């Protein structure tokens, strides 16, 4: 057997906190063979990123390493001093981070940041490094690399920046590249292209990789072997196909089950007839109109759609496509053009939304941390809409029970709850008004996969109970295909498609919609 490129043996990591040592990684053993890509999957807080930093030997000051060894080839990285590591980082281990905007220095040109690596680790002179840099950018399929070399990070798009980071990671022909969620900060289509690029580069260079992600479907597409990390422990390690088709550990099984699959419909009934709410030609402009200067930025324009009683209408699109703008217009948070038809009335401005409309249309936001007032207890957060819409404070325990939280949570503050629990409180607050339509603005995208599945399940249960309609905004097409009756596709503030979910695979969809479907990660288990 050949010697593995990376050998992590029985590695344990503690963080010293005021409450005593916190175990971040517990007896982790991993091996990556030459040319192999190991996927490392886990939920937030499972220690994925800590492991990446441990391999790079860039741990924070309060880290304690009681046991284990990390070997790169024949050398023990844990015995290296910072000087020796400086020669290894970038040269023998490359790294690609989650956010390309944060990992590039905004005051240096992209070319300078790329040639710096080449000059330092390959001993090239400036001119040779520049030529080599252009070559590296060409290899990552960037158009016009000469011009890009002279640009600053803010003059490039997110996808271009991540390509530059990847180019500099590959430029020194390292033995191992650590990828820490490289596509999470990018939108779906850009992320899919980066992933294709990564696969091609890997085949060409034969570099070994450690691919860290929370997204099982994604890891299944790039990694040969997958290790599942739960609270700092590796619970299962096997070939990707095995993990997804025959998961052995219960935690892995739960993770795999929680991944949305479009072919597994969760909603079977049909929505009611008629129109609950109809948006006609809605447009939103951001910024004030000024006497001089540019016209206000348009967030959305000419959007017409209607929601039927009890219907789940999915709205998908990339970031910046105007999905949230639509939600803000419908809930009266942004001044809009056009009109909203509701209960036989026409509403043309946020001021025209009366108490009946406000009660009927509720919104749940993306980040539960920001949508719950940190200075109010859960009880008073829920009490307010009840009082406003003629309910009684006595029904708070019932509301909490409906979202499957113990009644005692009414006395807690938001920061004492987990992310999923907070989002349940936000859902309970929306349902306190007994609404007809709940606008869900990316409500599951900041949650882990398993928590996301339970929140979705909760929403569907509430819908069965109350017959509520949802305007479900998300970037996850697979999730929408599981639950929505109809799907609206948005791009650059415009509605490009509005069709029944079953028709998404049909022939007469917008080319952009087709691109979006192709870019959504193939669900695990669907293909070997």
């Amino acid at each position: 057997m050949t010697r593995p490129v990376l050998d992590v043996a029985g590695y344990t990591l503690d963080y010293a906190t005021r409450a005593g040592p916190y175990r971040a990684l517990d007896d982790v053993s991993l091996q990556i063979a030459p040319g192999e890509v190991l996927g490392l999957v886990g939920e937030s807080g499972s220690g994925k990123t800590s492991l990446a930093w441990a391999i790079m030997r860039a741990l924070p000051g309060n880290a304690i390493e009681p046991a284990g060894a990390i070997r790169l080839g024949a050398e023990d990285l844990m015995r290296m001093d910072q000087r020796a590591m400086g020669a290894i980082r970038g040269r023998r281990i490359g790294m690609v981070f989650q956010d390309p905007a944060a990992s590039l220095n905004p005051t240096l040109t992209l070319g300078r940041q790329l040639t710096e690596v080449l000059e330092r680790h390959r001993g090239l002179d400036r001119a040779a490094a520049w030529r080599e840099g252009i070559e590296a950018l060409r290899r990552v399929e960037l158009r016009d690399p000469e011009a890009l070399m002279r640009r600053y990070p803010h003059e490039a798009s997110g996808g271009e920046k991540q390509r530059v980071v990847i180019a500099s990671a590959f430029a020194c022909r390292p033995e191992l590249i650590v990828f820490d969620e490289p596509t999470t900060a990018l939108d779906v289509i850009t992320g899919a292209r980066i992933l294709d690029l990564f696969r091609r580069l890997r085949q060409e260079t034969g570099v070994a990789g450690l691919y860290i992600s929370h997204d099982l479907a994604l890891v299944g597409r790039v990694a040969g072997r997958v290790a599942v990390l739960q609270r700092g422990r590796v619970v299962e390690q096997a070939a990707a196909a095995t993990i997804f088709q025959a998961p052995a550990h219960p935690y892995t099984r739960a993770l795999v089950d929680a991944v949305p699959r479009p072919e597994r419909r969760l909603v079977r009934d049909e929505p009611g007839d008629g129109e609950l709410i109809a948006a006609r030609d809605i447009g939103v402009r951001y910024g004030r109109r000024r006497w001089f200067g540019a016209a206000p930025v348009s967030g959305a324009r000419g959007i017409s759609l209607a929601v039927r009683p009890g219907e789940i209408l999915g709205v998908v699109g990339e970031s910046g496509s105007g999905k949230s703008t639509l939600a803000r217009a419908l809930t009266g948070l942004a001044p809009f053009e056009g009109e909203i038809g509701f209960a036989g009335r026409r509403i043309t401005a946020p001021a025209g939304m009366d108490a009946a409309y406000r009660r009927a249309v509720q919104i749940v936001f993306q980040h539960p941390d920001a949508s719950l007032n940190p200075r109010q207890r859960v009880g008073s957060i829920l009490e307010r809409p009840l009082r406003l819409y003629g309910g009684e404070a006595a029904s708070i325990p019932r509301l909490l029970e409906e979202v499957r939280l113990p009644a005692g949570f009414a006395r807690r503050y938001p920061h004492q709850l987990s992310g999923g629990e907070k989002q349940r409180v936000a859902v309970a607050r929306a349902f306190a008004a007994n609404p007809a339509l709940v606008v869900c603005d990316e409500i599951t995208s900041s949650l882990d996969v398993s928590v996301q599945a339970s929140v979705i399940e909760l929403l569907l249960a509430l819908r069965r109970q109350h017959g509520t309609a949802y305007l479900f905004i998300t970037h996850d097409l697979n999730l929408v295909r599981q639950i929505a009756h109809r799907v609206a596709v948005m791009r650059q503030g415009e509605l490009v498609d509005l069709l029944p979910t079953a028709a998404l695979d049909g022939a007469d969809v917008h080319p952009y919609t087709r691109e979006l479907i192709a870019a959504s990660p193939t669900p695990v288990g669907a293909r070997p």
Partner: protein
Amino acid sequence: MTDLLRRLLRTPQGALGLLILLLIALACVFGPSLAPHDPERMNILGRFRPPGAQNWMGADQLGRDMLSRLLIGARTTVPLALLATLAGSAVGASLGTVSAYLGGRWDEAIMRTVDAILAVPGLLLALLIVSTLGKGGGNAVLAVAIAFVPGMTRVTRSVALSVRRQDYVSAAIARGEGGAWIVFREMLPNVAAPIVIETTIRVAFAVMLFATLSFLGLGAQPPAPEWGLMVSEARRYLHQAPWMIVSPGLAIAVTVIGFNLLGDGLRDALNPRDDR
């Protein structure tokens, strides 16, 4: 509340600041009964008596006991400074939050007015108000309070602007809450921490501002044992009897330091993320 006190006491600045302020509060409450002499009783034979057994902190140009005057003067100096600061902070904080909530043209109008007032130095503004309204303690309080409003408004607005963008404010607007509820119940509690810190530090400024006003003859009037006034009177005898200027000066300095330390301690104790 007890939790806050415990965290406050854990920081050295907070504990020391609290101790100093406790001593000052004791002087304010029990000053007259603690004072060894009548603060206004003159003693021709004991003029300019240096600190010693008879007068622990010496005597002034009329033979009045300095210690007694300091202890009783605490009553007029510290509570007035506190009152003026609280009034100014309350108005400033409300104005800043309202401005951030309304946004747009209203925000522009309020903040430009505030900027214009801010361009006038605080002492000058206070002088202007007192000279318009007339001398005296009550007017001095009003003057200091008004002088504090613009600064407080700026500080509060900058914090409130970030709170305004939070989703819980959007949620309140979406469910049709009124403006007063959103400003005072949703936003103000979340900007309270910087306001409280700024207020404690400003109390120190107020003590100095009052002392300055009295020093210039526009605040408390003789023979009141106000600290600033005492410094002002002692100035003439600086070479003859330096203890006369040192003791009220020290009293002002210690009070200022006490409030500043408390402000520093509160800044650490009120940081909500620091729960561990």
